[in-house]
């Protein structure tokens, strides 16, 4: 059943039944959540970042709770693309939800390699993670330097017939974010994902030690929602590209706020840790809110495009 108030049609032909998606790194590939209930209502599942080589991840402790949010320093732990394709992909695709495969790397060559490797894998789109804060010498420059961003996105474009979103970092000034977003668009990105986590740190002052083993990490959860809304609204004012909004969404009100900021769809991350069915439950609540307000998801997003 398509629900009129919820359906999202993206310009490159992708149709999402609802604007509520799961965020990368916060829901595996849906397999764990499916043990608790039916995920059929979700718009799409976004996988945890898959890299060309396996990554063991960072030493523990990797997470620490902060006011209305949490810090994480997972370090892109994943089994590597070959093991992912061999062991996890088929089961993930069988969830019958559109799969958006999030990929990452540590160098230009790695981005080229992984984008090439996953063509035809069955995902409806890719999300290219240019912005993980937890990998040393990792991808960050691609998300903070417009020229580097343009180069990596162009190389990915040349190698991808799959549509792709480019996931950007909020750890820059607004003007630099706009430059990086424009660079991604110019190089052929089909859409943008905003935002990845904010850099942050917590310290156990009694032990004079950071709470996370590696010192700093990425801040997520409701604490960062206003930052996400700001980034999305700022970028929306400059582009017609589809935007997947992410950062602190935890309620149906939040989802509608993201749409009204200019996001076409919204990913739910940290809120999924509270409840494996958090995003699934939001779908109905968002529909009720939109219908009650006599509007629709696409109308909310479009209201910002007109400006």
């Amino acid at each position: 059943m398509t629900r009129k108030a919820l359906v999202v049609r993206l310009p490159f032909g992708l149709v999402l039944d609802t604007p509520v998606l799961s965020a990368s790194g916060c829901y595996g590939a849906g397999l764990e959540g499916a043990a608790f209930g039916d995920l059929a209502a979700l718009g799409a599942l976004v996988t945890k970042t898959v890299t060309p080589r396996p990554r063991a991840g960072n030493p523990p402790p990797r997470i620490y709770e902060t006011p209305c949010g949490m810090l994480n320093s997972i370090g892109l732990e994943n089994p590597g693309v070959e093991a992912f394709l061999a062991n996890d992909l088929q089961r993930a695709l069988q969830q019958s939800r559109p799969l958006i495969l999030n990929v990452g790397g540590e160098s230009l060559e790695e981005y080229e390699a992984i984008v090439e490797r996953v063509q035809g894998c069955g995902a409806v789109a890719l999300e290219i993670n240019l912005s993980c804060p937890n990998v040393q010498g990792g991808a960050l420059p691609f998300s903070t330097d417009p020229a580097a961003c343009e180069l990596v996105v162009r190389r990915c474009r040349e190698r991808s017939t799959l549509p792709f979103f480019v996931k950007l970092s909020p750890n820059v000034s607004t003007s630099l974010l706009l430059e990086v977003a424009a660079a991604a668009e110019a190089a052929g990105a089909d859409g943008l994902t905003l935002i990845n986590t904010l850099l942050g740190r917590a310290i156990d002052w009694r032990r004079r030690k950071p709470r996370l083993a590696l010192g700093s990490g990425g801040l997520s959860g409701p604490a960062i929602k206003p930052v996400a809304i700001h980034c999305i609204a700022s970028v929306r004012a400059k582009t017609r590209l589809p935007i997947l909004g992410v950062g602190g969404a935890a309620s149906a009100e939040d989802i509608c706020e993201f749409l009204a900021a200019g996001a076409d769809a919204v990913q739910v991350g940290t809120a999924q840790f509270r409840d494996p069915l958090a995003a699934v439950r939001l779908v109905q609540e968002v529909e009720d809110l939109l219908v009650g307000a006599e509007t629709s998801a696409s109308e909310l997003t479009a209201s910002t495009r007109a400006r």
Partner: protein
Amino acid sequence: MPQSCLHRVTENRALGGGSFVLRVAGPFEGVRAGQFCMLQSAELWLFLLPRPFSWFDVFEPGDTALRSDEATGAATFLGKVVGPGTARLAALEVGDELHVTGPLGRAWPSVEEGGPEPICIAGGVGLAPFLLWAKEGRAARKPVSLLYGGASAQALPAAGDFAATGADFHYATLDGSRGHRGSVLDLYRDLVGRGLLDGAAPVYCCGPDPMMEAVAAECRERGLRCVVSLETYMACGYGVCNGCTVEVRSAGRFAGRRYVKSCIEGPVFDSEELLWHASTAHG
């Protein structure tokens, strides 16, 4: 199938010293001793992650211990206030809602066929995962031996809840206010030395990290199997955040691995599977 839903609080019993037993109504199926769940009070206004708690007791429909408002069953959790999350759970009142996700994680391994009955060693609220184990023991085997230690008598709550299990309790307190004066490990050595406990039996242990590490070291020396239940910091509890990892020896079921998720592969581990210094770094 594990569940993630709201349940109504039917009792919250304060035990002194910040300890409490929280009780909720609802069907809880398929819970095995040693497993845990994620608890979270229902209000959304202040965002907190859920907190991992061992299942203390579970009552199936028809159990005579159920009350009139618990027709579908009930479960209890033994807690101690150490921060904001546990403080909020301790403050819940009858009629409030609690979100419970579970059962999660690996249970205590079953007793080897014909092998000796494991000796249980608990520190403080580390007692929690042993009540269901003792109940199972009562039903299937013989009463379990439980060594229960803490700083003082006040740090040893809820032993009374074990009455129906026939568990054989031995107490140790650092200040001598209850049972043996000293640590549970001293007590263990003493009881084994006097032939009152089977010195060849495996040890199942749950408590503060330093205690578990000391017990694991003792068992290694004695060539005994030691099984521990780790209290790792967790965000999701169901395997999606990769935040709860512990460092393991690359051998046995973890061959080729460096980090494993405590919420999926644990919280119950054989102590020899763990690299202790790294796994308990947060302690």
